[in-house]
């Protein structure tokens, strides 16, 4: 007699799987990758390749020889972490530093907690902050953006970022107007498309938003999370700009410079380390936005979103406990 499979319902399964989700994230990063290669040339490609290769290598080594378990590098999560790590560093970063960063990303931030799905902090950001603290000079020497095939405009090889210029200028007692008039300061359109100094992936707000829209359509991220971060930064920056426009730059400057878009769209939305429920996601987003603008306006660093996200990552379990989904038929007791 033929034997039939017996199992609990449901007997059909959706098309979604982890590999597909990771691939969607990678596709969403393609515009930003293309922009980075356009402005930083083959250096950008080099950094991305080293980062992805070392992340996947470390995951393989740790899973196979340290944990002696099954190897799951084909699920794509190590590749995503690798690309995100590359997005967070300057294109001229020495290879060995990048490899050290990848070891921290995969070894410390991901595998030591149990691998995919278990890490409380965003691995790529842990790697980035490790490098920022360990190699502060190399991590903040940004190559000047030069579109492929365009002749060199200046002799400068490295230059500051827009946010760095701003911080430096304000701290030196200049007004916002004077800082913005600095010839090194990238113009509005350049900041939008990414023709400026900065980390690989953060320069083009436009490319990042494009990727974000794709991920929202594919239901990999919820739009409410990045929007709550961006809105919070915009509102707080706007309030201070209205109070003192000579000391606080207009809020859209904050939106389109530095790592805000990269952080809000690709880093904060990391499924593993962000809250599970919609109300929690919005609270988490507001928290990231607040911490980001506090660090940018009054902190020691010109840039704050990496720290903001890592700090809010730590609050994720608490947020999950406090903010529950809307229950069906639950009467609020008065």
């Amino acid at each position, binding site marked *: 007699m033929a034997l039939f499979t017996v199992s609990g319902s449901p007997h059909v399964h959706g098309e979604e799987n982890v590999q597909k989700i990771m691939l969607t994230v990678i596709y969403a990063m393609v515009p930003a990758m293309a922009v980075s290669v356009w402005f930083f040339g083959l250096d950008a490609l080099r950094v991305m390749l080293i980062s992805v290769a070392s992340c996947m290598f470390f995951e393989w080594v740790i899973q196979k020889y340290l944990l002696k378990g099954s190897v799951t590098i084909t699920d794509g999560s190590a590749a995503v972490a690798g690309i995100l790590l590359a997005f967070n560093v300057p294109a001229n970063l020495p290879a060995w530093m990048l490899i050290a960063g990848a070891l921290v990303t995969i070894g410390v931030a991901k595998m030591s907690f149990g691998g995919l799905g278990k890490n409380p902090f965003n691995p790529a950001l842990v790697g980035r902050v490790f490098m920022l603290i360990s190699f502060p000079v190399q991590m903040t020497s940004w190559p000047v953006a030069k579109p492929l095939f365009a002749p060199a405009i200046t002799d400068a090889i490295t230059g500051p970022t827009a946010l760095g210029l701003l911080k430096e200028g304000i701290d030196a007692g200049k007004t916002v107007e004077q800082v913005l008039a600095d010839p090194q300061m990238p113009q509005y359109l350049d900041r939008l498309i990414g023709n400026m100094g900065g980390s690989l992936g953060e320069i083009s707000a436009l490319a990042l938003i494009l990727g974000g829209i794709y991920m929202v359509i594919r*239901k990999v991220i919820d739009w409410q999370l990045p929007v709550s971060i961006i809105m919070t930064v915009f509102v707080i920056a706007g309030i201070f700009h209205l109070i003192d426009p000579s000391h606080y730059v207009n809020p859209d400057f904050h939106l389109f410079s530095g790592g805000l878009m990269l952080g809000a769209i690709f880093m904060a939305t990391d499924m593993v380390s962000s809250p599970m429920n919609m109300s929690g996601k919005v609270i988490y987003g507001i928290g990231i936005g607040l911490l980001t603008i506090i660090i940018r306006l009054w902190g020691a660093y010109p840039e704050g979103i990496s720290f903001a996200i890592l700090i809010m990552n730590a609050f994720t379990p608490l947020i999950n406990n406090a903010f529950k*989904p809307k229950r069906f038929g639950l009467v609020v007791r008065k």
Partner: protein
Amino acid sequence: MSNLKTFIIGGVHPPEQKLSATAAIRPLPLSKQLIIPLGQNLGAPPRVIVKKGDEVKTGQLIAQADSFISANLHSPASGKIAKIDEAVDASGFRRPAIFIDVTGDEWVDDVDTSPEIVRGFSFSKSEIVSRIKAAGLVGLGGATFPTHVKMMVPDGKKATHLIINGVECEPYLTSDHRLMLERGEEMLVGIQLMMQALEVDKAIIGIENNKPDAISHLQLHCKSFQGISVQPLKVKYPQGGEKQLIKAAVNREVPSGKLPIEVGCVVSNVGTALAVYEAVQKRKPLIERVVTVTGKSLSNPSNFLVRIGTPVNELIAAAGGLPGDTGKIINGGPMMGKAVSSPDIPVVKGSSGILLIPEKESRRKKPITCIRCSKCTVACPMGLEPYLLAKLSKLGMFDRTEGGHIMDCIECGSCQYTCPSGLPLLDFLRLGKQKTAHLIRTRKS
């Protein structure tokens, strides 16, 4: 169809696969032997009142409901009681059943077997309920709750709406769809009878708009029935869930742990409405039902009118035979149906469909780690956190599952359907529900 309604929280969209939607209902020839399990209704099984060797007629009472929540059983054909023994039913367990050797189809005298539609009636509320009770009616959507109990509104409560479930949100199944098309008018009389019994003046038939022919057919006939309307619904699983349907149709939320009557609603399936018509107007007991037999590899997906007790393998044979690649046989739909170990089980009152799943689709995916994507939370129509409840159940932390409202889980399977990691979420939720229910019971006693 501009005023499509639906429920708000959660839901998924599995492929509809209504392969048998155009197959008209065909009566299946009588089987040689019928196996009638006693426990076909929710609640207590009825008491057997026949013995081995007795001659029975079609429609003759063979097991009597003694307790309040129970339902009578009638002989689905005429013949001789072969034995009263145990038989494997859809649950996979051996349960008591009556075996009947069929000799013919001779009906008991008081049943009106003519095909004429009897529209008018002048029954009192209690007459309707007692005829429903006598006929052994249960909810034909699958829950098999005795219908006469549902028709008696508890003291202190008032029903305002009768909601008729023509949603059929389970993929593959088409028995309700065909019934609405082919027996729509009788169904409407049945709805009127239920309205009379419940003393409500509004009935809403909820139908998903992937069945436009059923919507327009019933809308046309509704015109001659006072108070009955059709509400087209946006396709979304699990809209056929009682609480989801009430939310979609009248925008009321049944409170956690309560019954639909709490918000003035009584929900009944379209098949049950037809059975009510037959029970009251024709005095015909529930001895047959429509069963969809379907599957991607099946040569002839069909809808059969089948006598209760007919072995499932006869249905499969009539639909073209068991395909060689069959890996799983499901009693019901793919989302909530039960996988059965053998096609020898009999059709019971709650059988809405037989689904044959090919071998390559019958195995579960290898589960990997939860990536905390929150897709299960988004999909849950009850607003629960399946990933968390499953984890707590796995760890045996049943004191916390109760606070997570695990008892509200309707076991629709949306979480597991949507999980990209292929985790057996519903398996653990079921376990958690059992254990949590036990915890609540022991605390009360």
